[in-house]
C-alpha cells in the first residue's frame, strides 16, 4: 500500500540557476557589481545550496570572485557595519 504523501512543513520555492535562466548574464571577474550578489556582507561566497546556482556556474562564479579578490576588486574579508 502506498503511503499517503506527507505534507511538507515548509514550502520551498524551487531555486533556479540564474545564469542558466538568463543567458545574457555573464560571469566576469572584472564586474564586481554582479559578483557582489553572490557574496555575503562579510565577503564570503554564498554556497550553492543557498543561491541555487548550478554546479557549472557556481564553479565559474567562484573562480571569478577569487580573481576579483586577488586584484582588490572584492574584499577577502569585509568588516561588518557598526551601529
Amino acid at each position: 500500500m502506498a503511503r499517503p504523501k506527507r505534507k511538507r512543513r515548509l514550502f520551498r520555492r524551487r531555486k533556479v540557476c540564474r545564469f542558466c535562466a538568463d543567458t545574457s548574464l555573464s560571469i566576469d571577474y572584472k564586474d564586481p557589481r554582479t559578483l557582489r550578489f553572490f557574496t555575503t556582507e562579510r565577503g564570503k561566497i554564498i554556497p550553492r545550496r543557498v543561491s541555487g546556482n548550478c554546479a557549472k556556474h557556481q564553479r565559474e562564479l567562484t573562480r571569478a570572485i577569487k580573481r576579483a579578490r586577488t586584484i582588490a576588486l572584492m574584499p577577502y574579508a569585509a568588516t561588518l557595519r557598526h551601529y
Partner: protein
Amino acid sequence: MRRYETVFILNPELPEDQHKLLFDKLNGLVPEDQGTLVKLDEWGQKRLAYEIKKHTRGYYVLMDFCGDGALVHEIERNLRLDDRVLKYMTVLKDNAVDMEALEAEMEAAKEQTPRPEPVEEASGEGEEKGDSEPTGTGEAPVSEADPSENTPETSNQEEQENGTT
C-alpha cells in the same frame, strides 16, 4: 599563441605623464617576444577592496595581449620590479588565438572608438562577453563599453559602502 589579460594597479599618486612612460615600456616588451597587443585599457582610479602597501585607492590598467609564456614572464618580471605598480594579475583568456578573428576584432574596435554610442553598446554587453570570445567580432566594442559603464557606478557604490562602515 595564447591570449592573456593582465590587470595591474598603479600607485594613485603617480603623475599622469609617468603613466605614459610606463605603458610605453610595457608595450615595447610585447613585440620583442612576437606578441600582439590587443588593447591597453585604463580604468582609472578605483577604491581598493583592501589596502595594498598602505594605499586605499589605485589606478587600474588592463592590458590585453597575445603571446606565449615567455612574454608573460617578462611582463610580470617588469611589473614586479617596478615599485610604481602595487599589484598585478595575469589571466589566461584563450588557449589558441585565431589571428584572423583577432584582427577583425581589432579593426572593429578601431571603428567603434570614435562613435559615442554608450547606450547601444551597453545593451549588447551581457550576451557577448564571457563564452563568446573566440567569435571575435562582437567582443571588442563590448569590452570597450564595459569600463566606461562600470567605473563611475562601481566607485559610487563602493564609496557609499565605505561611508557606512
